[in-house]
């Protein structure tokens, strides 16, 4: 992805995440994805469960979710498995929604939210037990 592409992607997602989801939008997400964690792509709840199972996520793990958007699926996986999670993306609007959801779900103490590009992750080596991303910056 070029710098221009990245800037365009950021602007487009920023606009999308800035809009408050309506009741209809939440209902649609529930029917398509199976949950209401702010998903807008193709990773369903069942596929997030597959990730948790295949990666063997547990309360002992620290998970990094790249390109998290509004916190999907990282927050859900933290809720489901007990792991700690660090959510990263560029659009601040989405990260604000994710931070708010973490607080309302009682996940604040084990959730970190960081605005950073996947190409310049500001973390020390050997910081995580698992890394995930879904259809972003592949």
């Amino acid at each position, binding site marked *: 992805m070029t710098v221009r592409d990245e800037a365009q992607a950021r602007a487009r997602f920023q*606009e999308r995440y800035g809009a408050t989801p*309506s009741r209809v939008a939440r209902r649609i997400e529930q029917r398509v994805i199976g949950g209401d964690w702010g998903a807008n792509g193709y990773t369903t709840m069942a596929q997030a469960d597959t990730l948790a199972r295949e990666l063997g996520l547990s309360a002992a793990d620290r998970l990094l979710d790249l390109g998290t958007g509004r916190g999907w699926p990282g927050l859900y996986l933290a809720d489901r498995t007990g792991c700690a999670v660090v959510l990263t993306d560029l659009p*601040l609007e989405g990260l604000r929604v994710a931070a708010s959801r973490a607080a309302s779900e009682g996940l604040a103490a084990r959730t970190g939210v960081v*605005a950073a590009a996947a190409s310049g992750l500001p973390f020390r080596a*050997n910081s995580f037990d*698992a*890394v995930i991303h879904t*259809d972003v910056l*592949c």
Partner: protein
Amino acid sequence: MLRACRRLLRPGGRIGFYTIVEAPGLPAAARRRARAAGPWAAAMRSDHHRLLAAAGFRGVTELDVTPAFAATAAAWLAETEPHTAELARLEPPGAFAHRQADRRRMLAAVHSGLLRRVLLLARTNEGRVTGSQFGGHLWLRRHPTVVRTRSRPAP
């Protein structure tokens, strides 16, 4: 990015990601059509096994989830179309229509055998996973806070 992920993982760490890829073995013209139909925010790659190995990952596993991808894309279209006017009002002009067009294009490409979606799983070299060890990192806050960071080049 995979090399950066590898660096961030502890011994025994795992990586898992869903990604949309062009179907293997396509002729050049079909590959171009696949890339044009693929997600605009992602660089379409078809050589993840090689890239993961080169980044230092082992035990690469790939699960084909293309049928679920097609079903989900179709479900987004079917569920949102009846509410087009309401949903479009929530976004900047044209944004909703643009996304619907993306979904239709990708769904058509899946049905044409051009695109697949896969789950890739791999791990670093074997070693004891040390478990959660919080503290000491500037970026980790007790309460979730949006933190701006300066990007730096991946190692």
